[in-house]
């Protein structure tokens, strides 16, 4: 029964747990039978009912302890999955979710506090997020829709501040409902066949999903019109009834969530190309200008190509680097990263030296965009030459030329060579 007495919270030393004497005392005195039971939906509901009926702080305190556990588990699982590649920090994540220290009072405004009771949290302004986050979870919890631990997980998944934090680290938190809306019947079928063990048939799950999509679009539109927000929508009883009038709305929601979970499992490990995965995979093999064709004509052509690339490099990179240079005095790491790039270090090695994640380096150098823009500018110039005239009329020729120029810009011809884009940066950085 420790889940109703033990609170997981963020302290200066990280996530810690403490057994709250007041919660323990309340359970021992008022609900001794709970001591021998596992946490359950029944106990959650009894405590919530009591919190509402008596409008006292202790039943709510037990529920605050209870929800800190699924929040903690979700945070740790998410941290484990993405820390390595994206540099997210557990304490930073926990600051959005485990900010409840277990006090029996709650701050209602800048000046005033009140008892942490159901009527008080229910009266907090509805527009913003109630703090601590547990107050937000409890005041918005509708037992008709799902269990409390699940609700806590849904609420943390739709927490806009946490979403913004993830986004800064190159991660997108996708709600179950958006995921369902954006999955084709084919994907739903694959996901259900592989990951759902349920009494419902695959056909009935696909049918439920196909009814969900148009209703979701309408409900989302309405939600946006009322709240002005694109995220945070949750299906209400009316929505679930409309979706399947013959079924208990709670069961309908459970089925939808099961489908969403199956889709997530299907996607786990699938080839969604991330920044880091792409970086780790390395670039496409070099497609050099000339392999086996030599001779005077080829040499003249190479002179034209190199001249066009040089002009495009000077033209575009001067402006780009001037803009970057304005940030060097505020952040020496940026300057160092460009210097190391000019010296030919890999993005992984640059990241190590400047003590940032590889994604940070990649975003800073923006090599793909810059090299594409330079290659296109050079190709536009070369198109005027008879040898490249087909680039104006053939998709294949245009793409082949731009690809070859881009590869030439960023890929060394021989091991140890420094390719032209890096050489240019090196020259720029060595200027006094």
């Amino acid at each position, binding site marked *: 029964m420790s889940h109703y007495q033990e609170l997981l919270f963020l302290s200066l030393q990280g996530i810690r747990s403490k057994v709250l004497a007041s919660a323990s005392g309340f359970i021992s005195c008022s609900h001794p039978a709970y001591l021998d039971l596992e946490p359950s939906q029944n106990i959650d509901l009894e405590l919530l009912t009591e919190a509402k009926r008596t409008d006292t702080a202790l039943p709510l305190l037990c529920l605050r302890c209870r929800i800190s556990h699924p929040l903690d588990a979700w945070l740790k699982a998410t941290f484990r999955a993405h820390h390595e590649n994206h540099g997210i920090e557990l304490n930073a994540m926990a600051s959005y979710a485990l900010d409840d220290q277990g006090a029996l009072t709650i701050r209602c405004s800048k000046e005033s506090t009140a008892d942490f009771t159901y009527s008080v949290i229910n009266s907090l302004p509805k527009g913003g997020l109630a703090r601590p986050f547990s107050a937000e979870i409890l005041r918005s919890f509708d037992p008709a829709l799902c269990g409390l631990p699940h609700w806590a997980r849904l609420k943390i998944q739709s927490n806009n501040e946490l979403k913004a934090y993830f986004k800064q680290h190159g991660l997108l938190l996708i709600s179950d409902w958006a995921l369902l809306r954006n999955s084709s019947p084919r994907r739903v079928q694959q996901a259900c066949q592989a990951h759902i063990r349920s009494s419902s048939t695959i056909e009935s799950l696909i049918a439920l999903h196909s009814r969900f999509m148009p209703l979701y679009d309408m409900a989302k539109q309405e939600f946006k019109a009322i709240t002005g927000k*694109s995220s945070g929508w949750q299906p209400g009883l009316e929505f679930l009834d409309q979706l399947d009038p013959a079924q208990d709305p709670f069961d309908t929601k459970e089925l939808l969530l099961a489908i969403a979970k199956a889709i997530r499992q299907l996607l786990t490990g699938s080839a969604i190309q991330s920044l880091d995965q792409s970086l780790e995979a390395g670039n496409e093999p070099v497609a050099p200008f000339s392999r086996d064709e030599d001779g005077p004509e080829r040499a003249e052509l190479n002179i034209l190509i190199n001249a066009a690339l040089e002009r495009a490099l000077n033209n575009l990179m001067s402006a780009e680097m001037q803009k970057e240079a304005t940030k060097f005095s505020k952040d020496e790491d940026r300057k160092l990263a460009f210097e190391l790039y000019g010296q030919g270090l890999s993005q992984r090695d640059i990241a190590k030296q400047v003590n940032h994640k590889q994604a940070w380096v990649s975003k800073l150098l923006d090599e793909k965009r810059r090299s594409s823009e330079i290659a296109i500018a050079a190709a536009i110039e070369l198109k005027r030459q008879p040898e490249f005239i087909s680039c104006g009329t053939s998709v294949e020729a245009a793409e082949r030329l731009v690809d070859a120029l881009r590869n030439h810009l960023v890929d060394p011809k021989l091991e140890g060579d420094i390719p032209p884009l890096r050489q240019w940066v090196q020259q720029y950085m060595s200027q006094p």
Partner: protein
Amino acid sequence: MTEPLAPLELLSMPLGAVELPVGLQWNSQRSLAIAALKEVLAGQKALLPLGPTIGAEEEGRLLSLNRFALQLITAGVAADQFAVDKGTWMQEATAPQLLLAAQVDEENDVVVFSGVLTGSEFISLARKAKTSGENILVDTNEFKGGVERLLTLVQLLEPAALPRFALDTAVTNVQRKVVKIADWINGQLDEVFSQLYGAQLQPLSDGAFRTSVASRFENAANQNALALVSIPLGLANGKLVSGLEAEACIERFVLQMLATGSNPSNPDGLMLQLTASIDGDLLPNDLCISASQGKHNQQQIVENKNIIEFNFSGGLELINVSLGFPGSSDLVLPPLQLRG
């Protein structure tokens, strides 16, 4: 026992994602996608006009980017399919030249441009795609190249280089369109021929010729080879397919077309050769290839063969080539013009 993988809760931000300012209210996925496209264009040194200036956010409305007619389609960031409205593709006059696909995360104000299809690439996919009501369903991974491909095509190509195709008539039109063999010698391969059938120009340098072609085209080295085009073919569930689709087949073969002639700019002969993709393999039995030029008809049905070869020399008439397999619709190539 290995621990099962936790289901994926977060998606890694895809490469090249455009992050829009948070806190603005967007009416639709399309409005986010247009804002992201404007942001990409604003970051370009070259000025690329995007229109219309008013009403661009209206669903289904074609955009104009640097004089190219552009259809913008959107789906969620985790989507696996795009729904493309058939209506736009029903008439050549209104059909777009390019189809830009954007995956939008409305909850995070992020847009990812999955890639671009040209009109003929889309038509080629639409031929075998599933439909849902008035929409053609295209897998998100069919769109390649991100926004860079769009920027490449609209800046390098002349607008006339991308013809507009209507859905119902495109294939028939392509089959009627004449392919000039002389163009191959200049390194030009008809765009539609290449995209709809997967036709590829093969290098004809001495080295390449000796190693890969001469062994197949016996005596070809002595016949003044000028250009070689090959079409990958295959059987997918008993159906004849070509191009990329063929490359995924277990049973694969290739149709090679070698233009020959003593005048390097004017071919006067065409050798057609059908072989299995792997040297020495047998072609599928009952595969039938027919080729005709005027009254000169040639046809062969495979029976334990590993090669079929036809020759055409001279003649002003068009050369018609088709392949058939029992239970599959015929694969008819556009007419080939040897001279002129």
